[in-house]
């Protein structure tokens, strides 16, 4: 399930709900991203996430579908907020349920990596010196590129998947 929303969410409540929805699943992996109170040495007073309504939901749905193609997943949840939020508030939550723990953990990692480089969100930080747009990081691009299918020879497996026996 994909949820793009302005309202805050409670990660504990969301996890409890996700867990309760399936009693037959062995492993659940979760990643939760929150607003940090500083970026390097700069205090962050607040963060505003702009997004592209419509395209956001479409891209997140594509990324979720790709994860389900690559791993045997029982259930997935992606919640991403937009608008202004304060340090400590959750921005994004990804939850993945699978019978196989590595599938759950890898899919969780994949979802957050691709979401960070493909879902149209832009962060604007409020600092004591004023507002500034966060710049995209090469490390995020590299992390996302790990999951690119390399060639037909990899026979439908992700690079990381194939390292797991």
């Amino acid at each position, binding site marked *: 399930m994909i949820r793009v929303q302005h309202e805050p969410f409670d990660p504990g409540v969301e996890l409890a709900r996700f867990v309760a929805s399936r009693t037959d699943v062995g492993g659940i992996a979760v990643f939760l991203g929150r607003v940090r109170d500083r970026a390097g040495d700069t205090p962050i007073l607040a963060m505003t996430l702009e997004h592209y309504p419509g395209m956001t939901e479409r891209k997140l749905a594509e990324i979720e579908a790709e994860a389900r193609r690559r791993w045997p997943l029982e259930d997935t949840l992606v919640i991403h907020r937009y608008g202004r939020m304060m340090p400590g508030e959750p921005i994004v939550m990804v939850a993945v349920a699978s019978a196989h723990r590595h599938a759950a953990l890898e899919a969780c990692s994949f979802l*957050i990596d691709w979401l960070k480089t493909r879902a149209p969100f832009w962060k604007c930080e409020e600092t004591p010196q004023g507002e500034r747009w966060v710049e995209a990081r090469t490390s995020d691009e590299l992390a996302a590129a790990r999951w690119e299918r390399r060639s037909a020879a990899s026979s439908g497996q992700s690079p990381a998947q194939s390292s797991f026996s």
Partner: protein
Amino acid sequence: MRIRYFAWLRQRTGCAEEEIPLPPGVRRLSELKLWLANRHPRLGEALAAKGVVRCAVNQDYVAEDIELSDDDEVAFFPPVTGG
């Protein structure tokens, strides 16, 4: 057609979106970019720099110089920074 700008590109054009007819002589994305660079010089600077501006047509990323039609939605924005 509908043109949309996000994040700091929106601040450079001074508008989040504009409705315009497909301009005369503009058939491809590259031609639209040139036309928009002329209309919004500070957007033009960003478009001229390599790898600074991403483009989506009808809410899908487009890297190629595709043909446009009058009912397309074209969006320009910096690399995304969500998550």
